[in-house]
């Protein structure tokens, strides 16, 4: 199913169920992306400062103050299953 890119493993890690045709299409797209990254990798960046964010902003903070942004929101009402104020999920150990 895969060339350089292991689509089955990636789908498993992302918990995605893909059809065979999706796998083929996504593998091709991912390989194109990886090729492009490989291309960038070959550039000389010794004088370029690493970028961790595209927006040139820094130090955006909140003060440490309690707020209830959604006082009417009952998170449990959004869940497929809940019991005793807890979200109910299949057993996980």
């Amino acid at each position: 199913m895969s060339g350089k890119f292991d689509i089955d493993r990636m789908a498993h890690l992302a918990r995605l169920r893909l059809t065979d045709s999706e796998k083929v299409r996504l593998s091709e797209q991912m390989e194109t992306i990886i090729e492009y990254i490989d291309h960038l990798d070959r550039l000389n960046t010794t004088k370029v400062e690493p970028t961790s964010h595209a927006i040139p902003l820094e130090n955006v903070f909140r003060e440490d103050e309690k707020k209830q942004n959604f006082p009417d929101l009952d998170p449990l009402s959004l869940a497929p299953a809940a019991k005793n104020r807890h979200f109910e999920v299949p057993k996980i150990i």
Partner: protein
Amino acid sequence: MKYETVIGLEVHVQLKTQTKIFCSCSTEFGRPANENTCPICLGMPGVLPVLNKQAVEYAMQACLATDCRINPRNTFDRKNYFYPDLPKGYQITQLNLPIGEHGHININVNSVQKRIGITRIHMEEDAGKLVHGENEDQGKSYVDLNRTGTPLVEIVSEPEMRSAEEAREYLNQLKAILLYTGVSDCNMEEGSFRCDANISLRPFGQEPFGTRTELKNLNSFRFIQKAIDYEVERQTNILDQGDKVIQETRLYDSDKGVTRSMRSKEEAHDYRYFPEPDLVRLTMDNEWIERIRKTIPELPEQKRKRFVTEHDIPEYDAGVLTASQSMANYYEECVALHPHPKIISNWIMGDLSYELKNDGREIEDCPVAPASLIGLLQLIDKGTISGKMAKTVFEEMYQTGKPAQEIVKQKGLAQISDSSSIDKLIDDVLADNPKQIESYRNGKETIIGYFVGQVMKASKGQANPAVVNQMLKEKLNQP
């Protein structure tokens, strides 16, 4: 023991903020499940995290108090994995540029000082809490996301500890430092101070480390020591039989006192870290770092050294007294009122700690204030009561909160030191015991103990024994 134990510790510490690291939800412990949640910490699509400035400053304090170098540029990263306690499907943490690196703390084990390196300190968000169903709910797990998004620092040590005692002392010191700086309440029962231990063995003299196991679920200092001891023995047996230790995560079972493999499916973790795109750059300039540095109080180690040099008390006492900041403050308040450090240290480590322990109280809730304790010590100095009586008076002070003077008066406990009262008592005793006087005068001087006993009895224990002894000798030696 032919193997050397190698221990490294990872400690997760909850920062003492009012709100979560990326949203304004409360971090209060013990609220009804899922009450402290909002779309941000529930991981709803489209929400954006905004960093809590106080969390960053607490993390900076933790770094400065452990001599870490603060990275002027920090990044946050996503650690991707699926587990129901992590609703976003990733944890925001710091991988490549953590807030602090290359720190250390000093520990003292058996009077030997040792420096333990701190590899790094990074900020991250906590996950939620899972409860596993029982009986009819056996196939279910239940998720409480109150804790999700609580600010943590993870403090990673170098693998430089060589025994369970060293590990325990490292944790003691680390906890004391964090409490002194006020960055965390370090409450283990509430999960504010959690420890994982990496343990391996290697033959003495061998440089490369052996295969390590990671111990989790170490939720009290006592368990940590026991779990490490158990694990060292388990690995020793494996190596002795010529087998190999398997690298794995093991859980400590405190009921049975054993560690157990977590036996997760042997799938190598692949967290696919990448820079968190929802948070902008975090930079710390010198001005900010220096401003935070000024908030760091005198730390336990400095205090300990100062007590030894300035007050001339033993290293051991100084260690006990500085274990908590409030105890050190109590001690210092006492010394300021009454410059007899060793006597004060004895009282705090002895009777005072004994009462507090029985009562399950901390020293900040002690009903006997420093000034009251000193009031008692001054009564001993003046000879009003004996050291032995003082113990009884102290107990009463602790129970009732009354000052020493009042208790002594009420109970008629004052020691009789004035010579006229004692003179009378002695004369009565001597008049009743002519034979014993003769023995004494014939050279049986040890019989003086008998006289002292009789006088003390007649005074209901309140006569000052030193005065009695002195006066008896004078009288008996007169022809």
